[in-house]
Each structure stands twice: as C-alpha cells, then as structure tokens.
C-alpha cells in the first residue's frame, strides 16, 4: 500500500468516526435544548391557565390552534404534573406533540389539564441544522483530503526522488548517487545517511572485488610452482605405488584449485565488464559446434541428445556466449545419469537445455549463489551456475530454472 493511501485511509476513518460521534451528540444536545424551550412554553401556558382559573374561577375555553392544543377532563384523583410525548394522527399524517399534564381544582371539581405543543417545527429545525452542519463538514472533509493530497505529494516529493535514485543504484555500477537537494531537514539527514551508507557499501564492494582479484592473481604463481613440482615428481621412476597415489591426490587437488581460481578470476572479469564487445551471434551454429566438441563426453556417459534447433541470433559478447553454452551443456552432462537424456531446444528468442536429474530440484533461491551447492562433487567448483548468472546479468539476458519430469531445465531468454 502506498504511503498516501495508507495515510488517507487512516485519516478518513478517524474523521468519519469523529463526525459520527459529533453528529449524534449534536442531535441530542440540540433536541434537549429545543425540548426544554417547548417545556418552558408549556409552563407559561400552565401559569396562564392557573391565573385564569384564579381570576374567573372557571376554566378557559378549550383551544385548538395549529400547533397548540388544550384539553380539560374531569377527574377524581390528583397526581403531580408531568411532561410527556403524544403522537396524534391527523389527516396529513402522524404528528408528535410535547404534552404537559397537570391538575387544577375549579369549583371543588378536579380537572386534568393537558397542554400539547407540536414538535414539528422543532424537528424541522433540528433536521435543517443537522443537514447544514453535515454538508459543511463533508465539504470540509473533501477539501481536507484534496489539500492533504496536494501537500503530501509536494512534501514527500524529495523522498520519492531519493527512492528513485536508490532503486537505480547498482553496486559496482557506473552511476554516482545524486540525491536531490531539499530544504527539509529530515530528508536531508536521510539523504546524507543513505549516501554515506551507499558509498561505504560501494567502497567495501570494490575493496572486496579487488581483494578477490588480487588474491586469485597471487595464487596463480604458487599454483604454477606446485603443479610444476608435481609434474617433475611423477617423472621419477623410483616412486612407489603408495607415493604415486599421494602425488596423484595432490595433483588432482591442485587441478581443482587451479580451476576454482580461474573461475574466480573469470567472475571478477565479467564483473568488471571486461567483455564488452558485442556482436550478433548465429546461435544455432555455435550450439551445433559446441555439441560436436562435446560429442565424446556425451558418448562416454551413453547420453541421448535430443535437439530441436531453429535459427536464432543473439546480440552478446562471443566469449561470454561460448562460456554460458559450455557451462550449461557440460553441467547437463556432468549432472546426468548413465544413459540419461540431454535436451537442447533452440527457438528464435529462447534456449532450453534440460537433462535427466541425478538429484532433486535445485533451490531456485540459492542455486546461482557462489558455492551454494551443499553436496559438492569432487569435480565441481561450485561456481559454474554463478558464472552463468553473472554473464546473463551483464548481457541483459534472463536465465531461469525449472524442474519438470525429473529433469533440470535451464531456460535462457533474450529480446532484440
């Protein structure tokens, strides 16, 4: 939910709540005040009747005007005076009346006097007042919302600009961080803090990258020495079988280390955008060529290759293209079962490479991370998929994974 909507929602809810409570209280207070006033009028009427009786010793005439009724009834018991409501049906509908009953003795006879005053005018007044009030409040509410919206949008503008800047930021990218200047202190503090944090991250990233790169470079020479010494050692005819096995194990480990190092250097180079030359590549020819090169690997595992290659062109760096195909296809071979299947399906903007899986589905979240493979095989560096991902990222190609019919599917998609 957007900040505006959230704010407006809360705002509206509370305003409506306040309006509702205020409206109800307003109605009752207003009614109370007006009924009190009618009661006062009734009291005045009562005093007039009493004065009349006192003066002439008889009841006044029964009077019935539009909004006032006076009635007399002979009665025996006397109860104290009381106010009340009476609904009277007339030809044009029911009308509510406020009533006052009291007793008055006239010539030793008790009379019950009922004075009624119509509440119609009062109700009309209340309704009118409430209607006017509500309309005013509603107008205010709408006005507030509009003003809020405008002001908020304007006030938060620097925030949204900063958000855009952050979103377009990429570690190791060429863009520098340019937060818009604002005269609001909080935003300035936020921008400064963000800038510092991002610069620190960028710096750490560069340091780490350089470290990896330098470390890998520095490792190449010792590796070359170890390998050369092992190469010399195996020339020795006097080696016993046990010694040979030890040398062989060391040799294999150096081999793995060398490969790992090469892969790390390669990742660093891709990261550094060192493969920037782009050309249109006839993917069908490249894939066919690659399959031919790896023919022996397929037959050594008695794999069945199912190909469906349609003409396709992709715009990317040739070396990187080779690299991705190499990794994808050799993965499909290495992580396959004896006698399994490899499917290569090339369409105009899509390449699918699938293979019979030796294990369950890969973790889509982590599979492209470096060294994420939990059960590394002895002949696996754990960097193959990272390299694929990295190449796809710098080449603006999408690479997705699916697990279907117990086969790993790697899907490469691109647009022109």
């Amino acid at each position, binding site marked *: 939910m957007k900040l505006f909507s959230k704010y407006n929602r809360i705002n509206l809810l509370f305003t409506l709540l306040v309006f509702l409570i205020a409206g109800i209280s307003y109605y009752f207070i207003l009614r109370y005040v007006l009924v009190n006033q009618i009661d006062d009028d009734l009291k005045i009427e009562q005093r007039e009747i009493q004065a009349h009786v006192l003066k002439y010793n008889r009841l006044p005439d029964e009077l019935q005007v539009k909004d006032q009724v006076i009635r007399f009834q002979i009665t025996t018991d006397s109860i104290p005076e009381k106010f009340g409501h009476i609904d009277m049906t007339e030809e044009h509908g029911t009308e509510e009346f406020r009533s006052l009953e009291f007793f008055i003795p006239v010539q030793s006879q008790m009379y019950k006097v009922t004075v009624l005053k119509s509440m119609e005018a009062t109700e009309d007044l209340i309704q009118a007042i409430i209607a006017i009030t509500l309309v005013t409040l509603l107008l205010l509410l709408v006005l507030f919302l509009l003003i809020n919206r405008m002001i908020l949008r304007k006030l938060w503008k620097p925030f949204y600009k900063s958000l855009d800047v952050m979103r377009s930021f990429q570690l190791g990218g060429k863009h520098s961080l340019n937060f818009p200047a604002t005269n609001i202190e909080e935003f300035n503090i936020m921008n400064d803090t963000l800038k510092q944090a991002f610069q620190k991250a960028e710096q750490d990233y560069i340091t780490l990258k350089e470290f990896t790169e330098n470390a890998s470079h520095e490792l190449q020479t010792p590796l070359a020495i170890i390998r050369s*010494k092992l190469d010399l050692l*195996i020339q020795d005819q006097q080696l016993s079988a046990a010694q*040979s096995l030890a040398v062989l194990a060391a040799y294999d480990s150096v081999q793995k280390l060398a490969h790992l190092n090469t892969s790390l*250097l390669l990742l660093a180079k891709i990261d550094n955008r060192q493969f920037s030359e782009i050309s249109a590549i006839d993917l069908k020819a490249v894939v066919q060529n690659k399959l031919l090169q790896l023919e022996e690997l397929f037959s050594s595992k008695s794999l069945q290759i199912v190909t469906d290659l349609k003409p396709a062109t992709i715009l990317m760096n040739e070396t990187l293209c080779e690299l991705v195909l190499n990794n994808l296809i050799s993965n499909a071979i290495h992580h396959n079962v004896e006698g399994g299947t490899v499917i290569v399906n090339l369409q105009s903007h899509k390449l699918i490479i699938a293979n019979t899986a030796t294990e369950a589905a890969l973790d889509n979240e982590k599979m492209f991370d470096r060294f994420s493979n939990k059960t590394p095989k002895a002949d696996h560096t754990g960097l193959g998929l990272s390299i694929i991902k990295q190449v796809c990222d710098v080449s603006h190609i999408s690479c997705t994974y699916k697990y279907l019919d117990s086969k790993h599917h790697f899907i490469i998609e691109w647009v022109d």
Partner: protein
Amino acid sequence: MKILIVEDEKELANSICTYLGNEQFMCDVAYDFHSAMDKALVFEYACIILDIGLPGGSGLTILEELKRNDKADGLLIISAKNSLDDKVQALRAGADDYLTKPFHLSELGARVAAIIRRKSFDGKNVLSFDDLEMDLNERMLQVKNIPVELTRKEFDLLLYFISNKNKVITKTAIAEHLWDDHLGVSSNYDFLYTHIKNLRKKLMQAGTPDYIQSVYGMGYKFSLTR
C-alpha cells in the same frame, strides 16, 4: 640448442629448466629484467620463455627490444594474467605463443617444441620419432613410409606425446590439451582411454613397438623401450 627461461619465481624457472633440459636442449635462466635483457640480446636462443611481470621491468619491453634488434628467437610468453587483451598485445608485438599460469609442464613442452619446429624447419614442418614421421602441414602419419590413417584427436594426441617424449604426462594434462576447457574439472577420463587404446592399436598394427606406457593411475609415457 639453447632455451632461455625468464621467470622471477626461481622455483618455477628451475622446474621448467629441469623438465625441458635434456640431451637436445640446454637451459639458461634469468630471474630479473636486466639479466634477461642482457642474455637475450647477447646470445642466440631457439626459444625464450618470457614472464611478463618481472622485477625491474615488463617482459613485453624485452620482447619489443628483441624485435627491434631483428632477433629471430622463438618467444613464448607465460603470464599469470589470463586476459585476451594481454594475449593479443603480446602476439601482436611478435610473440609466438602465450600460456597462462598455472600450466602443465607437458603443455609448455609441447608449445616450445612447436615453436622451435616452426622456426627451424622453415615451413616443412615434419616431425620424426623412431619409425614415425608426422607431416604437420598435411596432418599425415607415415610409419616406415606407409601412411597410417588417424583421426584428428589421435593425431593431436600423438603429436603431444612425441613433443613430450620420455616424460610422464598426466591424463589431466592430455585431456586439457585435447579438449581445452570444455571438460571443466572432470575426474572421468574414460573417453581419453578410448583414444589412447585406438592410437596404440593403430601404431602396433603398422608394425611399431608399443611406445605408450601406462604409469600407475597417473598418466602415460611415450618412449622407445627397445
């Protein structure tokens, strides 16, 4: 024939020297820029193995200086940097080949042998070993003057063996040489075994002794065992 090894890592230089040195080659070693420059300019070498990163200067400067003096020595660059730009620059400056560390000594041996062959036979490019004669331009093998049909991989394999004769070559080194990096790190070399078996069979059917000797689980040695 003399070979100059210019490499600041003494141990690596010594390893190369030990591996390449035999009755045919004599090794000379230089550990820094200035002694390398002196030696390269004064003596004639069949091949100079040149490291780019040297104390005192760049190997590329030596390369340029040699070319300016019209020295015809073969030049193999070895570098810790596996960068296409560096490779292109070195080859453009007149180097014959470029090899990235860490390399297999057998790979280095094969590259040096190829450079020397190209320099010394002036385009004839024929390699002999015992009864075998390989025409590298035509990619033909003759055993006692009778042609023997080899596949492309078998021919490359045989060439690699002869370039590293009398040496134990690991399966890994052979596999990397024949299939470049396509294999990844593979511990399964069955397909290599098939090629070697076929090559051995073809050679022996042509009447040669068994040159290929298997050495424990490590690799193979190509030599005259008579």
